[in-house]
């Protein structure tokens, strides 16, 4: 595999584009464990990372992989892991650790059919709510979904940027279809890519309070070995990082975790609309299904139906505003998903207009085809 040459058209798999996106965003550490359909990410990074001075390691399992990337991130290196459903299940404990200790990292989950070993080589979108609520406790997290190879590059960069800026783990949901589809992309040159890095403390080490609130709600982050000796613990901690059981400190700490994300809603929530200007019917989709949906919308337009598309790129925090606007505008919304309606449930939750929300689901390991979505659109028009 050649190194990416910017400005050149490259035929890349979704998984390969994730790798190039991660490297462009400054990822220099990857720990992972082989799992279909995410293994290509490991394979390519094992080749690419040493070339850019980074580190690749294959750990003994996904628990260890998640631990290792948190460790590396604490040492000041942007890090990532990639897995699929069963491995993602194993990562949940340490994912919670990254949430409470506010360690930036990116977890790619290439979704396959579940539960358990499920359908290793088939596509699914069954991990959507798990990505949001998988680890225990009431915590905020950012979940992004990709739908094309180009997305795999650009959204991976976004994932790193959000993670670094808000000091929160970001889950990048890919799926078997996006991961294994090859498409041509032109990788932008490095100077065209906006890369965000965590903010290091500017105060002298004696003054440094590793978890002190500031106007952003995101404390400055010192990495190990830079003179700012501090304690990192998965226990609820005070602003110095020491365990606390004071109700006041506990609440203000946990609220800050939520608030920092709330403050960034406008930047974090990414959606894409197509043909929505005059739409009566909208299709709300994400991941590979949005590709089928778009095709279906074009077909519907050929039938004279004013259909439009709302593609969710950020799944969580739930892009309420965009969904609400689409629901207000349209008389009906079709929500096709490769699960039994995990996002449809969220959409229904915010539906205050009485707009008809029609689920269309497939859980047989196969893609939803444009014809199937078209049928749904025709059914509501």
């Amino acid at each position, binding site marked *: 595999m050649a190194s990416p040459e910017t400005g050149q058209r490259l035929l890349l798999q979704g998984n390969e584009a994730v790798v190039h996106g991660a490297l462009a965003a400054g990822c220099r550490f990857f720990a992972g464990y082989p799992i*279909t359909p995410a293994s290509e990410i490991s394979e390519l990074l094992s080749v690419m990372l040493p070339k850019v001075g980074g580190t690749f390691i294959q750990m003994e399992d996904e628990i260890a992989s998640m631990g290792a990337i948190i460790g590396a991130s604490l040492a000041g290196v942007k890090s990532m892991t990639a897995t699929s459903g069963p491995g993602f299940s194993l990562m949940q404990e340490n994912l919670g650790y990254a949430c409470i200790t506010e360690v930036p990292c990116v977890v790619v989950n290439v979704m396959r059919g579940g539960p358990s070993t499920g359908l290793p080589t*088939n596509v699914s979108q069954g991990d959507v709510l798990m990505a949001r609520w998988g680890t225990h406790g009431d915590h905020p997290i950012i979940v992004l979904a990709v739908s094309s190879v180009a997305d795999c590059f650009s959204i991976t960069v976004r994932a790193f940027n959000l993670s670094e800026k808000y000091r929160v783990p970001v889950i990048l949901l890919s799926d*078997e*279809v996006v991961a294994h*589809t090859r*498409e041509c992309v032109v990788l932008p040159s490095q100077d065209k890519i906006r890369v965000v890095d965590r903010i290091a403390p500017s105060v002298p080490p004696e003054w440094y309070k590793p978890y002190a609130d500031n106007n952003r709600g995101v404390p400055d982050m010192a990495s190990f070995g830079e003179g700012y000796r501090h304690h990192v613990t998965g226990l609820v901690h005070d602003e110095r990082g020491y365990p606390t059981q004071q109700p006041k400190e506990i609440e203000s700490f946990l609220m800050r975790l939520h608030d920092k994300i709330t403050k960034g809603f406008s930047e974090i929530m990414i959606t894409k609309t197509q043909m929505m200007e005059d739409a009566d019917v909208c299709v709300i989709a994400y991941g590979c299904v949005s590709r089928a949906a778009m*095709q279906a919308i*074009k077909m519907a337009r050929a039938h004279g139906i004013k259909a439009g598309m709302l593609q969710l790129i950020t799944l969580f925090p739930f892009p309420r505003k965009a969904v609400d606007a689409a629901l207000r505008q349209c008389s009906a919304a079709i929500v096709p998903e490769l699960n039994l309606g995990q996002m449809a449930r969220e959409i229904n939750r915010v539906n205050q207009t009485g707009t008809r929300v029609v689920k269309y689901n497939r859980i047989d390991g196969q893609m939803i085809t444009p014809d199937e979505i078209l049928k749904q659109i025709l059914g509501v028009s």
Partner: protein
Amino acid sequence: MNSEPRYEIRFSGSGGQGIITAAVVLADAVGTLDGKYVCQTQSYGPEARGGKSKAEVVMCAEPIDYPKAMQIDLLLSMTQASCDAYFFDIKPDGLLVVDAGLVEQLPTSRAVAIPFTKIARKEIGRELVANMVALGAIGYLSGQVNLKNLEKTLLSRVPKGTENMNRDALQAGIDEAKKVDLASLPRSFANEWEAEV
């Protein structure tokens, strides 16, 4: 249906025949060098090893929404089993290309049978490159790819030292395909692609 027609090719055979490699080379040539939009997908998992294996290439002058094949313009089958399994969504005027030695029962009369494996064995000396013979034939018959670009891409993707063998195989496929008279097939659309090549 679409303003800009898609062209969909499905490669099928059994695992180990190099079906996916052929599809990737075609997609790479069409996408990177010809500059069209292209989506290449494939079947994964156990069926890729020994069982039925398939790979698809969708190409279009406009961005492609649905990445998988919907109605196939050209189906390549390198085994009888894969031909039977993957023939179902071929277009009425789509073309079936099969390995003459391995597929005996043709489900359509719009079919071209070329003995890819035999050519690979006899002319190149390695059965292994039957996929590249087939790729040459498909590249020619589909009329969707610049054959020079196809060769260039192929050579950039094969292991060092096997370039000549692969180039010869591709060329053998193209030569063989040139002998086919598509006009003689029922409901031919030969005129459309001849203009492009």
